[in-house]
């Protein structure tokens, strides 16, 4: 298996191909300037963590753009307040604007139980002492006014902002209410309640007799955060966003913690059993539920057998989803993340087979090259990757998901259903060229066997496949033989050869070099490496392209 993308020297170590002795990719280093990075900034990370905290005022201390952008999190709009720093503020400092803004915001929303002040790049650069201003305001207003130190240039991506957000929660919100540990309660850390995920998890926990005290931050408000330390257990659902909080709470309040994942049947069952074990609860029903879900998902899973999936996530989801996709029977060909840590990659390695490519901090170009070369059957990622995949004709599943809950047992069935539906969507059939003749070429010397290397071939037999029936239309000969990839000078003769096959969709040959495949791809010519009898190869091609059946002129709807 060779590396499907070019790894420039400055990216060495971040891109690795998994084989037996493979190292994990290097991670958590700064992005190269000038690349099209899929990473975001600390403010983005902080908003990811905190936007859903309900009864606080979210005040972005920065210029208008940061605030406008920060209003949307996981494709949802939230109310944002902002100091909207302008030129005057930049030149003369915030001039008390922050203090005034906090005060006004609280007057406008007297029901708020706290204020979070997000410090952006601009605010950090003009060098205001935000903490002091917040402290004074808190005293005056009698509610917590908490700075979140998340200027975008901090750290390598959104991770730093998530850490800053966790620090803010701990310092200003968690554990403010006095009280003892309440038996049978848990916190979910790193759970954002996308499309009802939280409800699914909650239902399962309720079946164990457990109650969710606080979900950070899918369902969190000042009161539930204040009580969070009274939970008997912290369940870390996402390492990246939950682990810090769990560690600190363990240190400070002695809350025990447990890492769990509710994605995939095996993980969900194992997690529930772990939790049940912790509380000493009976949990026989778990295996049964998992089996039930497996049976419901079976028809979908059957249609996914052998398909190849490429995963590209922010950080920790990569690890927890890898298992779920494996249970769907998909082969993972790419595990990529924006800012995952070694632990995340380790987790994903456990679920990967040989030949998985790991790309840390994958930029747009690398993703695009991977998709071009490997053509996975599905890419999983976020909004910024979605439309690139579609332009290349590759089905795409978006995360955080848009349709239904993916967590828990029934969530897995949803995931199976959505994945199968996406892969089998009619549109991917329609993407094929419909108006060109369904014509293919075969590199063959005698006309009976596929027996030539593309670069060396001098004879191509050309076939039309109307209505799924192969009909030879002639033999084309080329002068140029013996093309060698290393020798770029021969590229033009290669271009002649490709031009000769300009009207073909696919060419069958024994083998073809990299550069040939690239040039062919630009020309919409699929190179299929194979050997065997020409008629078998064509029959196989026809069988795998059912849409050919409708291409007979005068058929497929319009009758003459």
């Amino acid at each position, binding site marked *: 298996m060779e590396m499907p993308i070019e790894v420039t020297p400055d990216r060495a170590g971040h891109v690795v191909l998994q084989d037996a002795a493979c190292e994990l990719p290097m991670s958590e280093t700064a992005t190269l*300037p*000038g*690349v099209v990075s899929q990473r975001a900034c600390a403010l983005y990370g902080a908003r990811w963590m905190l936007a859903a905290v309900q009864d606080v005022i979210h005040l972005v201390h920065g210029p*208008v753009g940061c605030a406008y952008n920060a209003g949307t999190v996981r494709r949802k709009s939230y109310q944002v307040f902002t100091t909207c720093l*302008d030129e005057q503020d*930049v030149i003369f400092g915030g001039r008390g604007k922050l203090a005034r803004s906090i005060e006004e915001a609280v007057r406008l929303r007297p029901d708020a139980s706290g204020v979070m002040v997000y410090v952006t790049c601009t605010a950090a650069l003009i060098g205001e002492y935000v903490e002091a201003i917040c402290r004074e305001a808190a005293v005056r207003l009698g509610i917590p006014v908490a700075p979140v130190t998340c200027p975008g240039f901090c750290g390598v991506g959104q991770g730093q902002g998530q850490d800053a957000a966790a620090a803010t929660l701990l310092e200003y919100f968690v554990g403010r209410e006095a009280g003892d540990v309440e038996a049978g309660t848990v916190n979910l850390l790193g759970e954002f309640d996308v499309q009802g995920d939280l409800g699914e998890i909650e239902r399962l926990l309720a079946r164990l007799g457990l109650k969710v005290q606080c979900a950070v931050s899918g369902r969190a408000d000042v009161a539930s955060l204040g009580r969070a330390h009274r939970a008997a257990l912290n369940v870390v659902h996402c390492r990246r966003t939950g682990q810090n909080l769990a560690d600190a709470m363990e240190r400070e309040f002695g809350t025990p913690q447990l890492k769990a994942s509710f994605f995939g049947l095996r993980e969900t069952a194992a997690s529930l059993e772990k939790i049940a074990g912790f509380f000493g609860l009976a949990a026989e029903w778990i295996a049964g539920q998992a089996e039930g879900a497996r049976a419901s998902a079976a028809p979908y899973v059957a249609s996914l057998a052998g398909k190849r999936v490429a995963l590209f996530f922010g950080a920790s989801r990569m690890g927890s989803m890898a298992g779920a996709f494996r249970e769907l029977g998909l082969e993972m060909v790419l595990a990529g993340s924006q800012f995952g840590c070694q632990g995340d990659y380790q987790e994903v390695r456990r679920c990967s087979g040989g030949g998985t490519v790991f790309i840390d901090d994958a930029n747009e*170009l690398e993703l695009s090259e991977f998709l071009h070369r490997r053509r996975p059957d599905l890419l999983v990622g976020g909004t910024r990757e979605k*439309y690139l995949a579609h332009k290349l004709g590759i089905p795409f599943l978006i995360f955080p998901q848009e349709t239904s809950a993916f967590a828990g047992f029934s969530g897995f069935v949803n995931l199976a259903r959505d994945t199968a539906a996406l892969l089998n969507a009619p549109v991917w059939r329609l993407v094929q060229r419909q108006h060109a003749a369904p014509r293919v070429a075969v590199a063959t010397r005698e006309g009976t066997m596929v027996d030539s290397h593309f670069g060396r071939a001098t004879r191509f037999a050309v076939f039309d496949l109307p209505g799924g029936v192969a009909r030879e239309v002639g033999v084309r000969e080329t002068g140029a033989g013996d093309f060698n990839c290393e020798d770029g000078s021969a590229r033009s003769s290669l271009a002649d050869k490709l031009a000769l096959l300009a009207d073909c969709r696919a060419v069958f040959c024994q083998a073809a070099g990299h550069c040939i495949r690239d040039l062919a791809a630009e020309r919409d010519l699929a190179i299929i490496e194979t050997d065997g009898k020409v008629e078998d190869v064509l029959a196989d091609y026809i069988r795998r392209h059912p849409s050919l059946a409708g291409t007979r002129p005068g058929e497929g709807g319009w009758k003459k």
Partner: protein
Amino acid sequence: MRLSEIPVEGIPYDQLKIEKYTCTPEYAERPADLIPSGARAVVVNPNRTCMPLGAMWATMGLHKGIPFVQGAQGCTTYVRYTFSRVFKEPATIATASFHEDAAVFGGRRNLIEGIRNLVVRYRPEVIGICTTCSSEIIGDDMVSNIKAAKAKLREEIGREAADAVDIVLINTPSFAGSHVEGYDRASRAFVETLATRQTGPNHKVNIIPGLLYPGDIREIKHLLRHMGVEGITLFDISDPFDAPLRPPQKFPYEPPGGTTATEIRDMANSLATMALQPHAGQAGARYLERKYGVRALVGQTPVGVQGTDDFIRGLSEVAGLPVPEDLLDERGRLVDSLADTFHHTMMKKVAVMGDPDVVLSVTRFVLEMGMEPVALAGSSVSKTFVHSLREIFEEGEFTGDPLVINGGDLFEFEEYLKKLSRLDLVIGNSKAVDIAKELQIPLVRVGFPIYDRFGYQKRAIVGYRGGEILLADIVNSILGYQYPDDRTHQL
């Protein structure tokens, strides 16, 4: 002229209205002194975004053009996210990836290495360098940095290849303006940097569309075609941001179309420049006029009958060509539609929000429909907004006294609307969705951004045909909402 109540098909006007717009019970009374945005320091739900977005938008409209954002990752990633959500297209935008060291020592190294990395990887023809708040505060000397970056590029890839890449600097510190101004500055920066010589008349007309959608730009081209005028569209996002799914794609993915650098150079030779949004693109048009005497025609976006009339008149005048019959037919169809639906639109109270040029042109159109604007909110502060509105009111013989917000926030707009005793329709972008929901009245979507519905970026509201689409939207929204159940089949 004010009309009193006219019964519509037998039902008195006020009975047609179902009283739906009571506010939700949680609605709390806010302190009155804090409602106008001018009276407070804090901004709640900003209505505009930042300058670099406009400059990135512009650069995305160039053939093999890639924006390079001199700042931290967020300023870029957020915009890529916004573009992808709005256009449903990939958006290739490079970032200088500022980290702590850049914040302390400046972004020179990031720019030099960044340009190199970008060119080696993507081989763009044009790079639009957008500065950000951070780089402007740090005080990067961009002109000298770009020189150094070019020198480095020559070293690495050779003089010829390096010089084939046009690098254009656009200063876009966001604290000084909005996305609208960012586009405006880009329009000037690109013509100033690229159109450096006048070589001889080309008999073309430059079009600077402003922040219009691909569908709108296609409609403008349709009008040019029918007029028989050859145009150069600056920042032509119509193909890059509405690209077909037609594999195979080249690697790296290269969006189709876009204005070429050669076309921009040729803009100095054109008959005239028509800037379709006074706030976004005027600067480029004025520059060409000052420098080369290329006439600048700056008018309202051609929305509705009179808006499009003005545009066509201007076009016909600069090109010296008559208006062809088929465009007169298109006009006639729009006028016919107005006549056919007037009884549904007349006297309906409407609020319009969005970028200033959108609000101005749409307001003019709703007056043509006999609607009554009650609140008009322009996203970015403008020196001419209020005056232009007054002109539109005069032309439309409109004597009402709507609330006019010149650059305020959405909170102010929303609070005002909640106090109105009656409002039938909001016209604006997706940022108004929550407001319309809260008030329980329909929203007709126009302008940027629209991310919560599909297809708006692909169709036009400009031109006579675009007018019919927008009119239909408005009428159907009113019909869908206004009629009691037993009258739902009436039109």
